[in-house]
């Protein structure tokens, strides 16, 4: 099958756009697992909440997109804090399995509740005016909004990575999860840190949701399709690694983009093939550390 260079270039660029979105979404998951050892299956549902809140704000209160970029993550983040305090903290000492099952149950609950109110066809959310229209790149048309998604995602990803790997707070966090008693002995409030971390990871998911609202139809089930792929990304990248999640997210976007050109039907399965191959060669993922 002959593919022209412009066509290939456009698919690569689109792949990068999607990849930055995957990176953004996997980031929260990687933060939560890497620092808290909780497999947060509810990530998809929380992403959906971010998008739905954005829609609700516009629809009921005429609050615009830019405000929601900040407000939605805060609200959902607070909700995450609530989940952590009320539910998650009881299961930290247990096997990973329970965290997964608990958050799976939460997902079903949240999605089911929203669905019973809003149905499944979804709610339309318009692209904010400042970002509508497109750039004509010659070999393809790139909507301005998609370019914005890349920029916003990459900024947040890099900022988060920096925060966790390079700052003092990040150091406390990492130390706190490895050896909570010791860090507490130094006067750091470890449980509070853990709660806030979960809230932060959740807020990242919600931020991705706000970004997604103008692009994907806002529907209570919108997280379902993405959650498995995002999981795969985090596993491939290495479950503890922030940088791993970011790079794998980007990489996967590109690989998927290429698959869509040459074997489109398999584009949603290729991530699993990659996962099996990676896990066989590097058991802890590409950048992970074997625990």
């Amino acid at each position, binding site marked *: 099958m002959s593919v022209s260079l412009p066509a290939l270039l456009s698919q690569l660029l689109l792949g990068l756009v999607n990849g930055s979105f995957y990176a953004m979404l996997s980031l929260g998951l990687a933060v939560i697992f890497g620092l808290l050892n909780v497999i947060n299956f509810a990530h998809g549902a929380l992403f959906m909440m971010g998008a739905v809140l954005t829609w609700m704000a516009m629809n009921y209160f005429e609050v615009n997109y830019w405000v929601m970029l900040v407000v939605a993550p805060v609200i959902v983040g607070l909700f995450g804090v609530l989940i952590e305090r009320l539910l998650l903290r009881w299961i930290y000492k247990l096997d990973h399995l329970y965290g997964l*099952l608990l958050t799976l149950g939460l997902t079903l609950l949240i999605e089911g509740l929203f669905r*019973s109110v809003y149905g499944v066809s979804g709610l339309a959310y318009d692209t904010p005016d400042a970002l509508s229209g497109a750039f004509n790149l010659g070999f393809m048309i790139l909507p301005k909004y998609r370019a914005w998604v890349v920029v916003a995602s990459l900024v947040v990803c890099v900022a988060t990575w920096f925060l966790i790997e390079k700052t003092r707070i990040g150091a406390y966090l990492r130390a706190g999860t490895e050896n909570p008693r010791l860090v507490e002995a130094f006067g750091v409030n470890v449980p509070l840190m853990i709660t806030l971390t979960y809230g932060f990871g959740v807020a990242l998911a919600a931020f991705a949701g706000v970004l997604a609202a103008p692009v994907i139809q806002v529907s209570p089930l919108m997280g379902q399709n993405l959650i498995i792929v995002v999981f795969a990304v985090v*596993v491939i990248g290495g479950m503890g690694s922030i940088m791993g999640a970011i790079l794998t997210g980007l990489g996967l976007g590109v690989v998927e983009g290429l698959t869509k050109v040459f074997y489109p039907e398999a584009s949603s399965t290729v991530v699993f*093939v990659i996962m099996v191959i990676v896990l066989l060669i590097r058991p802890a993922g590409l950048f992970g550390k074997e625990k």
Partner: protein
Amino acid sequence: MNKSILGYGLLFLALLAAPFMGAYPVFMMKLLCFALFASAFNLLLGYTGLLSFGHAAFLGGSAYVAGHAMKVWGVTPELGLILGTATGALLGWVFGLLAIRRQGIYFAMITLALAQMVFFIALQAKFTGGEDGLQAVPRGKLFGVLDLSSDLTMYYVALLIVAAAFALIVRTIHSPFGQVLKGIKENEPRALSLGYDVSRFKLLAFVISAALSGLAGSLKTLVLGFATLTDVHWSSSGSVILMTLLGGLGTLSGPLVGAAVVVALENKIGELGNLLAGLTRVEWFNTLGESVTIVTGLIFVVCVLAFRRGIMGEVIALFTRGGGKRAGAAGGGH
């Protein structure tokens, strides 16, 4: 051990009599198939400590193969079931070879990834019928003589098969092989240091679990007359985890109870809602029929937080504490 034989004997008798007490045979058969599926899964999770996210591949893959064999090749039901079980075993062997080397969440994710690939194949392959499913699988004649088209006849045959398979699981768990599995679950390094080839044991457990899941899937196809994508979808993998968790991990009767509750939930929630609405006069219960996901989610959450031993686990713990003399019974949960 004698007590448990008595208990299961009573259960078997109850099941034999069930159709005459007004139970609906097709629903019971569905229950039996899922009870077998959950028990097979529990062999791997509760007794060997391996969490697989890909069991739908065994359930569904075998369902399709058995269905195709019985419908298109015209084989008799017992051959169809054997072929299905063999498919489960084969898939289990392949999955096992690839996944066994890894631990914990990575093991689970590999099984999930492999199951997704099986799903993709099922979606693409012509013989599965894709979205429409493999329909119109005939009941046929068992061994060429016994006509299975009557629901009652089919029920007793299914009951015998599931009882035999369950007995096999019980035997496996109580055998030396089963003891090693438990040892691996509790302390793998120690088992290794004792000289056991841990990987081989795990693989064998995986294959047995997959084969019996395949039997469950094939039997389901025979009973209901079709195999669809739902059987290979990851939600079926999630469903069997819920059944086992709800019923009680590492107990023998747990999966049976868990399967019963989950299947009943899926099929009867509308009626349960109407019943509750009638009893409590709360109108909202009538809409329960549309809320299967919400109720399932709630059960998951409650189970993990407060109910981790599952229904049978809690019941057994209750009686073990109460009947102190028998508390020491180290035969492993029943």
